[in-house]
């Protein structure tokens, strides 16, 4: 589902990733970990084309990103749900509208939007906050709205960047459960985190990044 072949990425003269090769299989739920600044976010950005590799080849959901034209990028991104580290919620839109946006950009029918958004809002237990603006939500609630927006269109791949960044342990647990549920429905999930406790004891594959390279792969 996600394939990196000898991918390198430089920012000016700084090497962020060097000759990285990795594969995430269809239907898998895997973690990327490593110290802060080890290139986790950059790796995710390469997957959704917010950054382009300087070397190597990336294939996502059957799309060879090297051959992707500017105008095709939106169609790739519709296969990829993203839980951004900085949330990227629109504060002038309600929770409902924020989640609905993922469907609106896909030209979905209003009935479909209503049905699907209501569905995910129930799943993240925020239906009662549907008409609230994000600024009135707690950090954990905002995080769930971001996840709802990433999953509502049933993407083939879901990427999450530090999804439990500054949440307490209990809220983290809820979030982890959400990802499991999404994965159980067939979506490939890749979670970047520097927080070991998130994958400890999960039995999932963990890719460790260190000094611009894949250091090792372990089982959490």
């Amino acid at each position, binding site marked *: 589902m996600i394939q990196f072949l000898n991918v390198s990425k430089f920012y000016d003269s700084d090497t962020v990733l060097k000759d990285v090769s990795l594969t995430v299989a269809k239907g898998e739920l895997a973690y990327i970990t490593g110290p802060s600044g080890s290139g986790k976010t950059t790796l995710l950005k390469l997957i959704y084309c917010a950054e382009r590799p300087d070397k190597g080849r990336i294939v996502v959901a059957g799309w060879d990103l090297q051959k992707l034209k500017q105008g095709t990028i*939106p*169609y790739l*991104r519709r296969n990829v749900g*993203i839980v951004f580290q900085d949330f990227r919620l*629109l504060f002038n839109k309600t929770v409902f509208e924020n989640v609905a*946006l993922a469907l*609106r*950009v*896909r030209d979905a029918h209003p009935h479909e939007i209503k049905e699907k958004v209501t569905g995910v809002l129930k799943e993240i237990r925020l239906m009662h906050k549907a008409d609230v603006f994000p600024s009135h939500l707690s950090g954990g609630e905002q995080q769930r709205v971001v996840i709802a927006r990433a999953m509502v269109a049933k993407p083939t791949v879901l990427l999450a960047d530090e999804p439990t960044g500054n949440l307490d342990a209990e809220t983290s647990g809820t979030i982890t459960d959400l990802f499991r549920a999404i994965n159980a429905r067939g979506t490939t999930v890749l979670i970047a985190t520097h927080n070991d406790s998130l994958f400890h004891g999960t039995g999932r594959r963990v890719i460790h990044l260190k000094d611009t390279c894949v250091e090792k792969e372990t089982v959490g």
Partner: protein
Amino acid sequence: MRTLIYSIRTALSSLWHERWINLLSVLSISIGLLILGVFIAVAFNMDSALKRWSKNFGLVVYLQEGLSSEAEEDLRVFFLKDPDIEGVKYISKEEALQELRRILGKNGSVLEGFESNPLPSSFELSLKDKSLEPPVVRRKAAQIKLLEGVEDVEYGEQWLSSLNALSGIMKFGVVFLGGAIFVAIAFITYSTVKILFYRRRDEIETLKLLGATRFFIRLPFLLEGLFVGISGGAVSSLALWGIYSLVLHKGPEYLPSISGFLVQLPLTAYVPALLAGAVMSFTGSLIAVGKIRY
């Protein structure tokens, strides 16, 4: 289609949220178009005055002395058939003399010295509007002069040339001013949409990451620009109509000489403003949203 509906809603909401900047550009556009409209109105009135005026003059064809009435009739029929000629008026020797007496008034005695009527009979020909171009008139006059029984042809060439030049200058002025104002409108909407685009750049960035196409991102801005342009056009048309009606009704009270000179503006005089507002603001918005890179 659903994208269109969503974009209209987005555009309307932005129009409201950014109402001051939008109002400002609507006003700027309408002032520009109003200036153009006033100019068009003046040019239009001058043109119609020129047309009416030039109706009064045409070619005067003096006939040879002692031409038979059959020959005169033949010429008359010939002129009537000519597609450039609108009206034909015959003036006999006697009528010409009476006219001359009337003009001379009490100085009429100078005519006593003539034994017979020295004036020729003549035709006054008025030309169709489209034939009132100096070269056409000159050619026509030359042709007629060669006709059997024609002594001479006279026409006010100087007059015709200057009237035509004046009307040409007015038309050029309208085109030139129009061009300048169209560019200004495009620029006004360009700046407005650019500002709105810039203010919403975070939102646009998020939309891009969610898989929105360029079309989806641009459409609300284009619609907003279009709406601003059309509003500007409508406001200026309304203002022009108001001002013009006022001048039409009240103007003659203060400036009696313009009565009978002003004509009602046809509806088509308002169309350029609306059209220009719409087209140029759309163009401006299009340039403003520019290239979108992912």
